């Protein structure tokens, strides 16, 4: 079953934010009161905030810095982030910034999360990102994040993709890589996240079907 607190962290650009949004929507669709907190202090572009409308429409409260997606580049954390951790009647999804620098922000919430001990910390990976092409370098980044966050990952989400050019073969080619990461890290690969259009076609255990909720105007229209 789902843990009350779900933490999404990983290498910069691995797809954490989109996975966190999809995961929150999944929890909500199962009837759970869900809140999502954007703890990204690294990147002022492409934030959870961009999906505010979708989240709002589904009745999911978004807690993010008042400066996110604004013209103010402040590495600030939302004051209300504590409330999702303290309010044990809701399911909390935490979207953490990339790499060890992003994970630093998680540190201050760790004592409460560890004390309650009802959490899952997902390590989101993408084999097609240039600095995490193999299991060794991926686990190296994972350890850096754990050191900064003062917390251990509990499972892996394989989000290997090439953006809108992803093929089913690209996903299948990443399965061994994800297993190697899991083996080296000593944690299970809990999900393979794939776009909904691939979900039925692929014979993979533990598929997490996802959607892209924010389309950008500079992408080619299909």
């Amino acid at each position: 079953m789902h843990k009350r607190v779900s933490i999404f962290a990983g290498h910069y650009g691995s797809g954490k934010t989109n996975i966190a949004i999809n995961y929150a929507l999944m929890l909500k669709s199962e009837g759970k009161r869900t809140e999502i907190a954007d703890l990204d202090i690294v990147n002022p572009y492409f934030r959870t905030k961009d999906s505010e409308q979708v989240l709002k429409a589904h009745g999911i409260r978004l807690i993010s810095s008042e400066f996110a997606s604004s013209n103010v580049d402040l590495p600030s954390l939302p004051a209300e982030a504590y409330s999702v951790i303290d309010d044990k009647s809701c399911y909390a999804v935490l979207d953490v910034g990339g790499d060890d620098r992003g994970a630093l922000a998680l540190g201050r919430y760790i004592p409460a999360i560890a004390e309650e001990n009802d959490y899952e910390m997902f390590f989101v990976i993408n084999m097609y990102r240039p600095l995490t092409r193999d299991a060794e370098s991926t686990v190296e980044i994972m350890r850096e994040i754990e050191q900064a966050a003062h917390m251990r990952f509990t499972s892996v989400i394989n989000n290997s993709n090439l953006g809108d050019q992803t093929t089913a073969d690209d996903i299948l080619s990443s399965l061994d890589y994800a297993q190697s990461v899991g083996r080296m890290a000593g944690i299970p690969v809990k999900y393979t996240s794939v776009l909904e259009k691939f979900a039925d076609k692929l014979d993979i255990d533990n598929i997490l079907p996802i959607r892209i909720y924010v389309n950008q105007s500079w992408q080619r229209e299909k």
Partner: protein
Amino acid sequence: MSEKVLMKGNEALAEAAIMAGCRHYFGYPITPQTEVAAYMSKRMPKIDGVFLQAESELAAINMVIGVASTGKRVMTSSSSPGISLKSEGISYLAGCDLPALIVNVQRGGPGLGGIQPSQSDYFHATRGAGHGDSHMIVLAPASVQEMVDLVFKGFDLAEKYRMTSMILSDGTMGQMMEPVSLEIGEINEYDKSWALTGTKCEREPRIVNSLCLQPEELERQNFARFERYKVVEEKEPMYEQYRMDDAEVCIVAFGVASRISKNAIDLAREQGIKAGMIRPITLWPFPKKALSAAAGRAKAFVSVELSMGQMIEDIELAIRCSRPVLLCNRVGGIIPTVEEVLAKIVEASKVGGAE
């Protein structure tokens, strides 16, 4: 490595520079180009390269001058306010005739402005940043893949003509993620008999300097430099044409604006308006001949910019004001929407009128 990886524009710039043989990077952090420096800081130590976060933009650009004078490939990157600070050094690079690659991931201005994308450093880049008569080769990528290709091109042209090349990107291009093929581009060898490599007491010392107190000599240097620029303007303009065969409305746009424009052109065509685009890839040298030729058929031009009407002047000059040129722009970090560009195409299709 020819298979594809998923990269941010900023990361692609950094990796391509390393692939092109750049082992010296000097920078100072600023949003939205920080990933270039972050990537370099991770990669350079692993390949015996130098990543140095300088104490300021001024220090960084002067370190670039130092390495460039030895003939090695060197790069710095910044965003608009930081490029202003580097402008003095850019002028010195021109005065010393040194090759270097400078990346500007533009953000909204003037002043500190904002951190969202902009193209409002167009004048600054294409008119030769800094004081004195000079030019940079200015390259404007419109995809992450093109970032890789233009980094190779930028280094190549810089060495070929002993000039500074600038990659003129913007916050969106720097942040967007796309699959790229990291194939190594062409690396040519050029004469570097000017480079300061140490005499070892075996040859006469060489001097790289921008100070010249003799007016006649300084004038001679300026004329000689502009003879070289003339060759660049003749030989090196790059552009892409999109649906231009029968186009009556010609959009001119670069970088992220060109991507929006392509979508708007497709919609306009569905409405029966013959629209097309000339996308300058080099902003200096500007593809004047291509625009001048397009003016033969096109009834009107539209300049789509994330600035207050800068490139529009180059379009008007290139076509000698023979056709109306409309401006479609948003600023302050806002990107024009496909609908806004489409509306301007419709307007342009009417103002052209029958001849």
